[in-house]
C-alpha cells in the first residue's frame, strides 16, 4: 500500500478499517462528523456497517449491540455527544465488551472525563492520545487490539487539528499477534444448549448456577480484571531532551506538537528544556514523568483546558519539583477547537517564564 495524502479524519477511518473495524455508528458533530462521513463511505465497501444513528445515545447503543456479536465496533462523538454516552460507556465496561470510542474533542477539556470516567461508578477506559496523523493511524489500530484483548472500551482522543491536518500516510494493518478467540460473542447458536450465553453489565452468572444476580461478585471480578489490565498495559510517552532539562514540559495530543516546537527552539537557543508527551493518558506514564522531573528545577504543564492532566503530573512528580500550569482554555469564536494559544511563540514565552523563576 502506498502513501496517500489524507486528512486525519480519513486516516483514522482507514485505520479503523485496517484494524478490522466493521461496525461504526455516530451522529454528526464537528469535528467528529468528518470521521463519520468517511466511515459512511468506506465501511460498506468492505462489507461493514456504518449507521447514521439518530442521536449519540442511540449510536453507542448500536455499537454496543454490534460489539456483543464480536464484530469490531467503534463509535464516538465530540463534547456534548460524549457526555450523553456516559451512562453507556460506564456500563458497557461492566458488560466486558470491547469498543473503540473516538473523542474528537473541541479542546482538551475532556481529560478528566476520559481518564476518570465521566459515568457513574468504578470503571476505567484505556485512553490513547495521538500527537499527529501518523501516530493516530497506529494508535487507532492499537485501540482495537487493546479493546478486544482486555474486553474493555478504549478511548482515542483527537481534535479539530488532527481531523483537519492532511499528511501523506500509509495505512497498513499492524500485527498485534493473533486475535483472541471470542468465546463470549453472541450469535444465537448456544440457544437451547442449556448453556446459552449472556452478556450483561449485571454479571454473566446464570440463575441455573446462582440464584439472583450477584452484583458484588461481578463488580469484584470486574475490578480485579481492570486492575490487571492497568498493570499490564504499558504506559507510553515520548520524551525529548529530558535528561538534563531544567524545565520539563508535559503536554499531550496536538498541543504537544506546538510545545515540542517551542522546546526545540529554546534548546537551539541554549535553554535546558525538555518535553514529555504522554501518549497513553490512562494508564498515565507516571514513572516517565517522575523520572524526567527527578533532576529538573520545575515541571510545566500545558493543556488546552483549565488544568486537568496537571493532577496526574502532580501525583507523579510529588515533591521532586514544583509543577506549574502554563495552559488554559483557548478557543476561537468558531467553537470548533481552534486555539489562538496554539502558537509556538506563545508557548515558548510561557516556558521562558517558568525558566526565569
Amino acid at each position, binding site marked *: 500500500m502506498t502513501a496517500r495524502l489524507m486528512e486525519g479524519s480519513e486516516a483514522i477511518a482507514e485505520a479503523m478499517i485496517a484494524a478490522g473495524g466493521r461496525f461504526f455508528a455516530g451522529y454528526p458533530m464537528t469535528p467528529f462528523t468528518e470521521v463519520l462521513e468517511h466511515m459512511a463511505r468506506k465501511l460498506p465497501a468492505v462489507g461493514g456497517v456504518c449507521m447514521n444513528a439518530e442521536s449519540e445515545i442511540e449510536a453507542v447503543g448500536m455499537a454496543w449491540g454490534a460489539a456483543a456479536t464480536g464484530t469490531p465496533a467503534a463509535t464516538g462523538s465530540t463534547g456534548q455527544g460524549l457526555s450523553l454516552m456516559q451512562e453507556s460507556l460506564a456500563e458497557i465496561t461492566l458488560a466486558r465488551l470491547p469498543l473503540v470510542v473516538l473523542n474528537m474533542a473541541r479542546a482538551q477539556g475532556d481529560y478528566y472525563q476520559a481518564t476518570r470516567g465521566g459515568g457513574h461508578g468504578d470503571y476505567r477506559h484505556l485512553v490513547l492520545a495521538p500527537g499527529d496523523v501518523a501516530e493516530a493511524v497506529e494508535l487507532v489500530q492499537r485501540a482495537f487490539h487493546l479493546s478486544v484483548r482486555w474486553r474493555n472500551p478504549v478511548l482515542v482522543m483527537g481534535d479539530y487539528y488532527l481531523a483537519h491536518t492532511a499528511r501523506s500516510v500509509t495505512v497498513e494493518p499492524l500485527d498485534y*499477534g493473533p486475535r483472541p478467540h471470542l468465546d463470549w460473542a453472541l450469535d444465537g447458536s448456544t440457544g437451547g444448549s442449556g448453556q446459552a450465553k449472556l452478556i450483561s453489565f449485571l454479571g454473566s452468572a446464570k440463575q441455573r448456577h446462582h440464584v439472583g444476580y450477584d452484583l458484588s461478585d461481578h463488580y469484584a471480578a470486574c475490578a480485579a480484571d481492570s486492575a490487571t489490565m492497568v498493570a499490564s498495559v504499558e504506559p507510553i510517552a515520548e520524551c525529548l531532551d529530558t535528561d538534563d532539562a531544567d524545565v520539563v514540559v508535559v503536554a499531550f495530543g496536538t498541543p504537544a506538537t506546538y510545545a515540542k516546537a517551542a522546546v526545540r527552539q529554546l534548546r537551539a537557543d541554549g535553554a535546558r528544556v525538555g518535553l514529555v508527551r504522554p501518549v497513553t493518558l490512562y494508564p498515565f506514564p507516571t514513572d516517565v514523568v517522575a523520572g524526567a522531573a527527578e533532576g529538573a528545577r520545575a515541571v510545566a504543564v500545558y493543556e488546552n483546558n483549565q488544568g486537568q492532566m496537571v493532577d496526574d503530573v502532580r501525583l507523579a512528580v510529588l515533591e521532586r519539583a514544583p509543577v506549574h500550569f502554563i495552559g488554559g482554555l483557548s478557543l476561537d469564536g468558531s467553537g470548533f477547537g481552534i486555539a489562538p494559544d496554539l502558537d509556538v511563540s506563545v508557548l515558548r514565552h510561557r516556558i521562558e517564564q517558568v525558566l526565569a523563576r
Partner: protein
Amino acid sequence: MSDGEGADLQNTVLDFYDHRSVERELLVTGIGGQGVQLVAIVLAHAALAEGRTVQVFGSYGGMMRGGNTQSTVIVADGPVEAPPTVSAAWSAILMHPEFSEPTVRCLVPGGVALVNSTVFEGDLGTTAFAVVEIPASALALDLGNALAASMVMAGAYVAVTGLVSLDALQGAARGALPAYRAQHAELNERALLAGYDAAPRLRVPAWSSGLALSP
C-alpha cells in the same frame, strides 16, 4: 511491552522526529468558496509527487458561515516537524483582503506574499518580504470563470517560488478533480498557465538549488 503489543510505538514516535529538515510554509487565505482549500491540496499533491513531505491544515465549515477560510501548507525535504499551524511563515497567497491581516503578520523576512490584486487596494506596506501582485480575479474572469482565480494564484506562486515544477502542479490539479468535474480540467489548466505567465520567474526561490526536484 508486557503483553506482546506488537509494533513498538515509543521508538516509532521518537524516530519520526529524529532529524531536522528544510521546511517551507505557505499560508493561503480567503473567504469561503474561493478555492483556498483546493489550492492548498493541489500544491501539496504536487510537492508529494516530487518526493517532498507535506502537511496541510485547513480550517473551514460550520457555524459561522461566510467567514474566512485558511490553509497552512508545509513542504519539507524531510519529515515535517511543524505543528498544524505556524506563527511564522515563509510565504502566503492572499485571495481576499478581509481576513488577510493576521496572515501577513506571520510572514518572515525573506519570504513572499502573492496578492490577488483585483480585490486588494493599496499595498501591504512592507519591504521585509517580497510582494507579488497578480490580478487573479481579473485573469480568471477573462478565462470565463471567477472561481478559477485560486488556480491562477497557484500558477503564479509556482512561477515565483519554484516550490514545485509547473508539470507537477498541472498533474496535481488534474488529479484533484473528481470524475464528475472533469469538464473543469481544461479551465484549471488555462488558469494555472495564466498565473504562471503573469508572474516573475523564481523571484523568491523556495529551495537553495532554485529548482524544484524532478519527480
